[in-house]
């Protein structure tokens, strides 16, 4: 059965880690104001560009290929999600489970082969 007392440390860890990193971000901001290093100017606060004001909005549209990578990732991640319980329960499911997974992998291998063939895995 699930031992919830093993999960509580993770929650406490999360709180402590969040606190630590928040402190690391905001404490220097406070000290900078106290020591007088804090001295923003319009030039300093402008975004980085090679010596001229930016021509256009930084958040431009980008290639649809990134979308394809993300969706391929979801599919293979789900495949991995199916593999996790399979890997630890083979002792119970035996050859039935093994054969079932091989068929599943075969189906997705077809998809991978199709992606490969059509050039969706090429990056250019």
């Amino acid at each position, binding site marked *: 059965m699930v031992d919830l007392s093993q*999960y509580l440390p993770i929650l406490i860890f999360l709180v402590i880690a969040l606190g630590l990193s928040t402190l690391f971000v905001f404490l220097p901001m406070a000290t900078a104001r106290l020591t007088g290093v804090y001295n923003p100017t319009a030039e300093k606060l402008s*975004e980085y560009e090679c010596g001229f004001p930016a021509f256009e909005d930084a958040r431009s549209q980008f290639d649809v290929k990134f979308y394809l990578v993300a969706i391929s990732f979801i599919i293979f991640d789900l495949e991995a999600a199916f593999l996790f319980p399979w890997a630890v329960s083979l002792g119970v499911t035996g050859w039935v489970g093994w054969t079932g997974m091989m068929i599943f992998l075969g189906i997705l291998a077809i998809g991978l082969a199709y992606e490969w063939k059509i050039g969706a895995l090429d990056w250019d």
Partner: protein
Amino acid sequence: MTEFFVSLGMAYGAAWFLATVLGILLIALPLMLAVAMVIYVDRKVWAAVALRRGPNVVGPFGLLQSFADGLKVFLQETIVPSAANRGLFLIAPIITFTVALLGWAVVPFGPEAVLADINVGLLYILAVSSLGVYGVVIAGWASNSKYPFFSALRAAAQMISYEVSIGFIIVCVILWAGTFNMNGIIAAQQGHGLGVINAFVVNPLLFPLFVMFLISALAETARAPFDLTEAESELVAGYQTEYSSMSFALFWLGEYANVLLMCALLAILFFGGWLPPVDWAPLYLVPGWIWLFAKIFFFFFVFSLIKATVPRFRYDQLMRLGWKVFLPLSLFFIVINSGWLMATGHFGAGS
């Protein structure tokens, strides 16, 4: 530790809480110290390969260099660009660093010395490391500047591409170990090689996966030769371009903490974690955490050497390696490994 506080006359609940908080601090603070030292090691190795001296002024042998850098960075001004989304801009380094620390909650430092001994420990690490992408993407987007934005896109696509093969490689290790519990995985490696060597890596069916995991770990943490997210010749400093002061340093700390976590994973999954390398009774007298740290340090040294010697990949080469080489190969090895284990009756009653 809880027993110790109970013996001091505390109530069990309070003793448990105090012990847990102490345990967390015992992980988090030495980790930050380790990161500082590891950055120093990284620079020294890099310098040695390039026949330079590296940091050698602050403290003996320059040992205190990282602390001097930390102090300098701490006293600097935090610049938030006027075009940036202020809130998200400051949240991004917090996410990166928190996530980098969080993975260590399930890493076992000894048979008993593990903060959260959960059944799904390895999956937990996988889940936490998949969160790392958000710090980078949010940083790049919130900066509202061109180079960070490009870098964030690259980083996201790169990290998710290699997470796929990491997931499949983990499945192969799990097939042999039979559990997702970190201590269980380590225990399964005892005497794995001919009954004497405590490591999965000597298994010929797992060795190729170790190599793939090592390379995927480099790509997942965006270390050289896969550091395309901060390729200075094209993207200035990547998603960190607009950052300054401690928020900048947090990305560095987070990055190195992630690298150390990957080294720890390599040690735990393939090299027997806190077990001594050879199953020989006198070696067990050495505390487990020393073995683990030695292995982590060894892998970090390998990472450093790779950074110093291998030229950077191009983005299309990186994607090709991830999707066209590692993905099919790791799938193939799942079939081979599970088939072998089924055929040899490793699972006993199943067949």
